[in-house]
């Protein structure tokens, strides 16, 4: 075993913390944006219009079939071109990998959240909304008081688990030279030749955070379960 020097972690802590902050920020934005867009997608996918439903299904299936790394690079190349076309600017705007990652992850996560939403809504037995309507409830009352409260309870643990997966997946942006948690640690590791220490440290922090989060989800899941 060669001599290890974990002092580098304490010396560079503020810089790496900045990276972690970006990672958390990206996770939160992608989760919220993905939830909104995913819900819309799920509604389109469950709608009775076959054309729109097929388009939504195609989008979801495409996002799920292609490696995330490929999606990240696609958006990184295409985003300036699309923005130029949309705004009619003379030159493609320089938005940078750091910002394009926000849009990438919102669009990517939307596909996954859409599937979770769809499963959640479909998990409610069809007889229930029919019974609610027979009792004289309107469509929105049926959704608000009968379907959604149960669907959300069924979905929440899966949604949170997906968010933990997202939190880990975000680390792939470091390959676009973005200074996220992994990117920041990697830059220090190269600069100070402390690769072993920095990557062990990153692995440990991720492990502690993700283990803590998944424990919390499990407790929540037990509490929220619908008694049968």
């Amino acid at each position, binding site marked *: *075993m*060669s001599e290890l020097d974990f002092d580098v972690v304490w010396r560079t802590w503020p810089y790496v913390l900045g990276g972690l902050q970006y990672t958390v920020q990206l996770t939160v934005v992608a989760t919220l944006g993905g939830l909104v867009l995913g819900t819309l997608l799920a509604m389109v996918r469950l709608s009775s219009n076959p054309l729109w439903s097929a388009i939504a299904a195609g989008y979801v299936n*495409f996002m799920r*079939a*292609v*490696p*995330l*790394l*490929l999606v990240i*690079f*696609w958006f990184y*190349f295409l985003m300036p071109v699309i923005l130029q076309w949309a705004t009619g600017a003379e030159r493609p705007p320089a938005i940078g990998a750091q910002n394009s990652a926000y849009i990438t992850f919102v669009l990517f996560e939307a596909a996954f959240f859409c599937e979770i939403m769809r499963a959640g809504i479909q998990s409610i037995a069809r007889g229930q909304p029919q019974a609610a309507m027979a009792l004289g409830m309107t469509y929105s009352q049926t959704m608000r008081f009968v379907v959604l409260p149960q669907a959300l309870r069924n979905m929440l643990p899966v949604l949170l688990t997906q968010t933990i997966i997202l939190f*880990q*997946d975000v*680390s*792939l942006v*470091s*390959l676009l030279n973005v200074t996220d948690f*992994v990117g920041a640690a*990697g830059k220090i*590791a190269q600069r100070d030749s402390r*690769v*072993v220490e920095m*990557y*062990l440290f*990153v*692995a440990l922090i*991720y*492990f502690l955070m*993700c*283990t803590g989060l*998944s424990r919390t989800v499990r407790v929540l899941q037990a509490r929220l379960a619908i008694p049968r």
Partner: protein
Amino acid sequence: MNPEIFFELAVDGEAPWWRMLADGLQFTLGVAGWAWLIAMGLGSVVGTVRTLPQRWLVLCGDAWVELFRNIPLIVQFFVWYFVLPGLFLPVKVWVTALDPTQHQFITAILCLGLFTSARIAEQVKAGLLALPKEQHLAALALGLTTWQSYRYVRLPMAFRLIIAPLTSDTMSLIKNTSVAYSIGLTELFFRTREMGELTFRYFEAFAAATVVYILISLLANRAMAFVEARVRVPGYIGTSR
């Protein structure tokens, strides 16, 4: 979009670009295939162990799954590739004796194999727990040992139950091979980026890679569906479809 670029020679002048991408694809499939075998083998053992009555065995199995599920894949790649040789001298000696490509290839297989084994273990455990307890008791009553009950009764049933989630894990594994790009393995994604960078034909390169990844995923999906149909137990699982 100009497909002629694929027939132009790559910068080193030895082969056309389609050939470079095909070479990358070989690594992608090689890593996916070997890692799949490791993941299925280890995942089955760990998943089975987690359903045994011995408490300490269950804890070991749980720890295995937690370890590989709670660290991002790219960080696991860096740990295997940089940290292990840096931490243990014998590993470093062995690794430096290897050809760099060999080192990357073996690292990718081990890393993805163990990463995926944690997911397979979850599915195997879920499959075993979904079986009625009476089945195991009946096997024991017939004089089978616990090992025989698992070998001849429970595992054959459990695996049939979990083919659908195993399919999705297999497709994730194929997609995840692209992360081996981070340690410099010249797999499909690495070659795609290289082609984009050296020819400035990003669109063509990435479109080709996207189509190939989708095709492999579809093939893997069809293969698993074929297996599912072949091993179906009449009157039991999935026959209602």
